[in-house]
């Protein structure tokens, strides 16, 4: 399994991205990914303005799946994976 997490939005409006192979995921990160795949959150944006929005792409034996995750539904443990590339 390989995951890619893309972040957009926020006050800065600067995109961020992070990728992990299954072997690089901690048990907690793995569990958070499984939870999102099992119960995908509603993709409606978080209330207010300048909130982050995430797109998670998971590729494994079952194929490629994409999840749109608003900030309020994003597990904190996964939110730190995307980084800004200067």
């Amino acid at each position, binding site marked *: 399994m390989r995951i890619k997490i893309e972040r957009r*939005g926020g*006050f*800065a409006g*600067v995109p961020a991205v992070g990728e992990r192979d299954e072997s690089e995921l901690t048990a907690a990160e793995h569990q958070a990914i499984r939870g999102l795949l099992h119960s995908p959150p509603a993709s409606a944006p978080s209330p207010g303005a*300048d909130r982050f929005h995430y797109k998670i792409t998971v590729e494994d034996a079952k194929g490629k799946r994409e999840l749109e995750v608003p900030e309020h539904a994003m597990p904190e443990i996964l939110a730190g994976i995307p980084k*800004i590339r200067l």
Partner: protein
Amino acid sequence: MSTPIQAQLHCGCCFIVPPELLRELSRGQKLSPRNARVFQDSFLETVRLRHIREGHRVASLVTRRSVAAEAAAHQAEQHIFDCGHRMSLPGKAVANPSTGGDAFQTVFKTTGQVAEFYQTVLGRNSVDNQGMDLVSSLNYGQIYQNAFWNGQQMVYGNGDQHIFIDFWKSLDVIGHELTHGVTQNESGLRYEGESGALNESLSDCFGAAFNQWVGKAPASKDDGWLIGAGIMGPDAKTKGYNCLRDMVNPAAQHCLSPQPISYANFDPTADVHINSGIPNRAFALFARAAGGNSYDSPIKLWYSACTGGHLSAGATFADFAKSTLDAANRWTGPDKDKLAKAVRDAWHTVEVPLPSV
């Protein structure tokens, strides 16, 4: 109980036959005494109901006036919270923010200045114009590279200290976030597409004008149009980025988040913080052409366009451009013609269509 004739004459709340005609009919020579009395009773009933209605109208005016006066008199209080690097809002209340350490003191002071800017420059009483209390939470999350408005309050992260430092360290950021609350209470611009980019632009415009107001900087000074200059971290600066956005020159290389400079480059797939560069540039060009300070006539005219009641939640750039032109046409000062020309020229430069004269 109403007689059949009375039932036809009025329904208890409005009158089919004018009261004056009822009075004339009641005096008719050919009427039987019974029917004359019916018309007379109906006339008296209309007079009684008219007096009751007038009483209610006056009472509601008095109540409305007193509610409005109460709202205008209410002064917003500030509440500062410490999230302790957790993502739970609002966090722990800071008992004495004015003496609670550099971060709390600065946010308390700057938020108060934003409220003062709205009050003294624009005549607005806080976020909702009714003295709504101002709530700010600091130290949100771990290495959280953002500040946001959650619909009820402002929230600030500490950045990673490499690309971004603490998000409360830029005056315009605090003005930006509070302005999202103002927009929410006015047009409620939808946070997508052109209306979303307008929503973002308004926060940058009022944030920049607030920043220039604090520094008493004229519109001609370039630094006052940089958004996020105070939160750039050492790594970003080393790479030559001195701001997130530059309202005068949105596509400049010194911007970490470059933006399109005209409507011809509008990207429908982009985040609202990208396309906001187009109306941002229009405001900066307008304010510079108007001369003097952005926080005088220019921001007042933009505020009038936002609060004039004609800006819908789904407004396009062209809709907003028209609102600013309408605001210029409503302007009563001696610089009316100059402002109207500057507004028109600014939107023309960024290629947003305006109605023909």
